[in-house]
């Protein structure tokens, strides 16, 4: 089915971005935000319309023109929308619109508002190109474009050099992933050529997938997965995401939580027909996903920056999605992607609201007691937090539960994978509520001057929060066990995945109970340690004496909390920046070192150059004659 509706989804934000770049300064700041939001809202309406038009097994097409053509290869600028794309589009434009709206309030006092909205619109443009692309080459355009926008937005407040460094790092780490992606694409193309189908269209790939040699499939999918780890912040390329929190908070919500970082998950889902050919890659994905989930969850516990907790939490949740993809449950991965977009965006925006109210403060140790001052923020934060923790009946419960079920019961799943996911679920609940209690409960630890200033955010900011909070509850109901509309919707694209129908018999109820149970334990532990004031005693001697009365706490502290926090701290302080970050920086440093010493060859003495010329000639002859 063809329609020329699809092209307007990316084109509207692009047009708004261009207008804002050239005229944004002249029209006044207010207008820039309104224009940008309106454009994304327009896209959202079109996406809704597209969603209505679609049936689960239909594909809408919209071909603009032939991009690259030289016989026999041909790539078109052509958009397609199937069930999977429609879901992604709704997330991107819907949540994107809410975040644009929020930004009109959040960025109202900022000088570069027009620039900000131009970048944000440009991002929506590239992201929708990414999900709408009907071939890998066009997909790559979106893939690289979102990376670029992410770089520009992270470094948006460039007065602080740390921000530009973070932007740079994000871009370069992403490029490592892109390197693998590009190689995977070349290899895939070569293989397709061999099969006599010189094309990179998804449709053609899907048709030819069965004929791809198994070894080649493993190599190709591995390369694509490395690309995905870069964009979706998995071990070992996750290092850029926590640093990316230097950008404005709406950016973190839109790009670094709800949309761009899910591009890797989308890639594996989109190419699921390739990945299922490579069981080896799949199991690697599952292991990396599970490891990332646990690892990042642990680090999140030891963070004190409100946004960094959420950043590591995002890494951890993305790990869940890869865990699901790795056990072949692509539908469950996309489902978690979908629900996560709501509650994580809500959390980030809530955090933005808190930071806004606190005059830019991000350290949770200097917050507390904000519950009454910021009621709207508090309640939405609580709901989203419950969703993240996976407490029924919120959306997070349904999606996480499904992933854990698949991790255990799917043909590729195992008890070990489930166990890791299960522990992470407890951790998630714990760090989330630690944060909630530190920020909103107790009494304020902020200086007087800041406290006097605290105020609830304007409506432009709270309305998106409320909408997202409602979404955080309702989004999960798409997959109620009794009436599941999610799986049938995506079945044609992602294949069937219902653990109840295959694999060994599982006591589903038990698994659900265990998951909810550990989440509740995590919340309880957080409440126990941070819910009341006493646990924050590190700040003053007063709390020390109070704490003496609770010997049981001491015991608990000694047996469980100390080793655990020590491990978490070690991971957060030493291992994360030292080993993994160090490896990335080390490679960069190595290149720079080689470069710096290599430059010395360039002595400036022309006779050295002449001599090099001579030696080069001699070597060529030697090489040729020795052959």
């Amino acid at each position, binding site marked *: 089915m063809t329609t020329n509706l699809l092209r307007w989804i990316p084109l509207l934000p692009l047009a708004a971005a261009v207008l804002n770049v050239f005229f944004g300064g002249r029209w006044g700041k207010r207008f820039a935000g309104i224009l940008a939001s309106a454009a994304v809202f327009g896209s959202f309406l079109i996406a809704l319309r597209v969603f209505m038009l679609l049936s689960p097994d239909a594909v809408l097409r919209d071909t603009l023109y032939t991009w690259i053509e030289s016989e026999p290869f041909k790539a078109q600028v052509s958009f397609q929308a199937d069930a999977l794309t429609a879901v992604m589009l709704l997330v991107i434009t819907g949540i994107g619109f809410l975040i644009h709206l929020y930004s009109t309030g959040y960025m109202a006092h900022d000088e570069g508002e027009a620039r900000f909205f131009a970048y944000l619109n440009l991002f929506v443009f590239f992201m929708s190109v990414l999900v709408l692309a009907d071939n890998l080459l066009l997909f790559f355009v979106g893939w690289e474009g979102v990376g670029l926008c992410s770089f520009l937005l992270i470094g948006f407040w460039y007065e602080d050099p740390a921000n530009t460094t973070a932007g740079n790092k994000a871009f370069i780490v992403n490029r490592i992933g892109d390197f693998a992606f590009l190689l995977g694409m070349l290899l895939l193309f070569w293989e397709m050529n061999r099969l006599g189908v010189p094309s990179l269209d998804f449709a053609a790939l899907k048709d030819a997938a069965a004929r791809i040699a198994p070894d080649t499939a493993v190599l190709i999918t591995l390369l694509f997965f490395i690309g995905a780890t870069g964009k979706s912040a998995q071990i070992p390329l996750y290092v850029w995401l926590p640093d990316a929190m230097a950008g404005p908070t709406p950016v973190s919500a839109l790009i670094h939580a709800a949309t761009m970082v899910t591009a890797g998950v989308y890639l594996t889902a989109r190419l699921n027909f390739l990945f299922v050919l490579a069981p080896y890659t799949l199991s690697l994905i599952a292991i990396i996903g599970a490891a990332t989930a646990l690892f990042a969850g642990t680090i999140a516990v030891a963070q004190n920056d409100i946004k960094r907790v959420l950043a590591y939490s995002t890494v951890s949740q993305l790990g869940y999605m890869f865990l699901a993809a790795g056990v072949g449950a692509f539908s469950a991965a996309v489902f978690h992607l979908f629900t996560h977009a709501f509650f994580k965006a809500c959390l980030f925006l809530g955090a933005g609201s808190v930071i806004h109210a606190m005059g830019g403060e991000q350290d949770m140790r200097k917050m507390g007691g904000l519950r009454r001052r910021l009621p709207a923020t508090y309640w939405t934060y609580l709901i989203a937090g419950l969703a993240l923790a996976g407490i029924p009946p919120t959306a997070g419960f349904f999606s996480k539960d499904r992933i854990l079920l698949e991790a255990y019961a799917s043909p590729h799943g195992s008890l070990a994978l489930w166990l890791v996911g299960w522990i992470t679920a407890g951790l998630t609940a714990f760090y989330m509520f630690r944060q909630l209690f530190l920020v909103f409960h107790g009494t304020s630890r902020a200086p007087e001057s800041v406290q006097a200033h605290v105020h609830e955010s304007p409506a432009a900011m709270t309305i998106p929060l409320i909408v997202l909070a409602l979404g955080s509850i309702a989004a999960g109901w798409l997959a109620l066990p009794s009436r599941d509309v999610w799986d049938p919707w995506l079945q044609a694209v992602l294949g069937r995945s219902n653990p109840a129908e295959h694999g060994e018999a599982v006591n589903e109820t038990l698994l659900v109970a265990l998951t909810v149970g550990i989440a509740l334990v995590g919340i309880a532990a957080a409440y126990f340690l941070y819910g009341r004031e006493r646990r924050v005693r590190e700040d003053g001697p007063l709390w020390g004496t109070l704490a003496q009365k609770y010997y049981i706490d001491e015991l608990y502290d000694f047996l469980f909390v100390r080793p655990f926090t020590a491990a978490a701290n070690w991971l957060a302080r030493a291992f994360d920046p030292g080993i993994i970050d160090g490896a990335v920086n080390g490679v960069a440093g190595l290149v720079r070192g080689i470069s710096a010493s290599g430059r010395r060859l360039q002595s400036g003495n022309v006779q050295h150059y002449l*001599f090099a010329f*001579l030696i080069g*000639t*001699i070597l060529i002859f030697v090489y040729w004659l020795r052959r």
Partner: protein
Amino acid sequence: MIVFFILAFLTLLFSLLVVTQRNVVHSAMALAATLFVMAVLFLTLDAPMLGVLQILVYAGAIMILILFVIMLLNPLSIEARPAAWWMLGSLGAAALCLQLAALVHRPAVSAEAAVPASFGGPESIAQSLFTDFALPFGLASVLLLVAIIGAVALAQRQR
């Protein structure tokens, strides 16, 4: 044969002098001598026209030009001769020499071709120049035009 060896010896001797003389004027003189001897070598290869041109163009025009610039700039310093660098450079050149010699010492044509008496004379060269090589000949004049404009542009007094 004997003639060749004498000429070859002289060529190499003078050319080595060009490279080894520390005084630039001495080098220039040695170069003039080399070019002169090579003109004679050209004669032994039945290239009388080029022998004459060699003397006129090279030993005449170009050498005069070089000497002129030497006089103009009058660099009095005698250059140093750092042993290590000389060694390195000479070794490189020697390696190249060995390779080239190894490559050329067995050419396809070994026997001398029979040639008419006019071979290499003005007529035969002119004949070829204005028929087969008319185009390069014309372009050579463009090349000279470039050189003239370039030299003027670089050496002319500043406005």
